């Protein structure tokens, strides 16, 4: 049985502390619930409602359209295994600005913590699937696995400064009885606001580049 050592909220709180103002953060499912609990940002794409598993793909599209920005995708292991092919699609495109952070709790948390078929408990005695190994084999430039919060804290900023695509598995504890994420508002209106925020960011990032 895998020993989970980190809390999802602790991990996300740390990410929020180092997130740059120009970063785009895509979050889905349980990660979206916890990310929203910590605050909001105009460049947050809270992917609720979503088609489960598609956060990595949506992140790829954003990364290709906006190579001047970092795109950080926060998803879960359940979502990832619904769209494993996206790992191959992503590495085929080699977006240097895309970072996938997979919060691996081994379960479908928001539906009642049923085990995923990739986890110990869902595999009839077969070993758990090595998600980091899948990413490595798919061709990600850098692959990380964290099950210790101190190590995650120490390496996070350097990881986000690494040339992508980057893939990280963050082993976190499932939250008993955790609800699913709630949409923070009507989706089409949020899409328009997000696009406006990215437009505003044009000027902001140009200013940053000028300053450099």
């Amino acid at each position, binding site marked *: 049985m895998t020993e989970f050592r980190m809390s999802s909220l602790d991990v996300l709180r740390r990410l929020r502390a180092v997130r740059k103002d120009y970063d785009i953060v895509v979050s889905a499912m349980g990660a979206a619930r916890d990310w929203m609990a910590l605050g909001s940002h105009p460049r947050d*794409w809270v992917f609720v*409602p*979503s*088609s*489960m*598993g*598609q*956060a990595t*793909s*949506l*992140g*790829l*599209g*954003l*990364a*290709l*359209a*906006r190579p001047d920005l970092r795109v950080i995708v926060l998803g879960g292991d359940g979502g990832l295994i619904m*769209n494993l*092919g*996206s790992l*191959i*699609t992503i590495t*085929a*495109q080699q977006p240097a600005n895309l970072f996938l952070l997979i919060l691996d709790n081994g379960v479908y948390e928001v539906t009642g913590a049923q085990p995923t078929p990739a986890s110990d408990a869902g595999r009839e005695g077969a070993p758990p699937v090595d998600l980091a190994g899948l990413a490595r084999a798919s061709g990600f430039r850098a692959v990380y696995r964290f099950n210790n919060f101190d190590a995650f804290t120490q390496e996070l900023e350097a990881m986000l400064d690494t040339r992508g695509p980057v893939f990280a598995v963050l082993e976190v504890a499932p939250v008993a009885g955790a609800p699913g994420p709630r949409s923070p508002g009507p*989706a*089409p209106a949020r*899409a328009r606001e*997000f*696009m406006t925020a*990215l*437009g505003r960011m044009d000027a902001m990032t140009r200013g940053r580049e000028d300053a450099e």
Partner: protein
Amino acid sequence: MNALFRGEQVAELLRECGFTHVVTVPDSTLGAWETAIEESGMRLIRVCREGEAWAIAAGLYLGGARPLVMIQCTGLFESGDALRNVLHDWKLPIPSIIGYRSYLNQDTLPGDTCLAFTEPILKAWQLDYRLVKEPGDFELMAEHLRASLAAGTPGVVLVAEGKA
């Protein structure tokens, strides 16, 4: 090859419409257009399965690009939930070209059930589509893409195919 339109013809239309990216899984007809699309300057994004295509296109659109999804009808069947989310939940106007397998003949797959389900499924997803089934329909395709872009709606061009 058994395609209604030449790749160069399609690529020129897509370029003229302002598309920046074509997100695709090939089939015998659509795949023959890939080289011309890439040579015309648009970026071709090859996905592993069609559900990815809608979400990638959504990200591209949100980021300011102008994507087109190009898949076979079998991929339409596969990608329903992703399509529903992008086109209906978020109302992102992503146009698409969808290959209509076996419409022109069923030599390869006699009794192909794509013929039974493709158009009912497009209607079920409430998608505004135009079926193009002969070379003279090229302008119909062009008009529908242009009109969809102008209206900000996710128009579909359904291209009749003769091979799988």
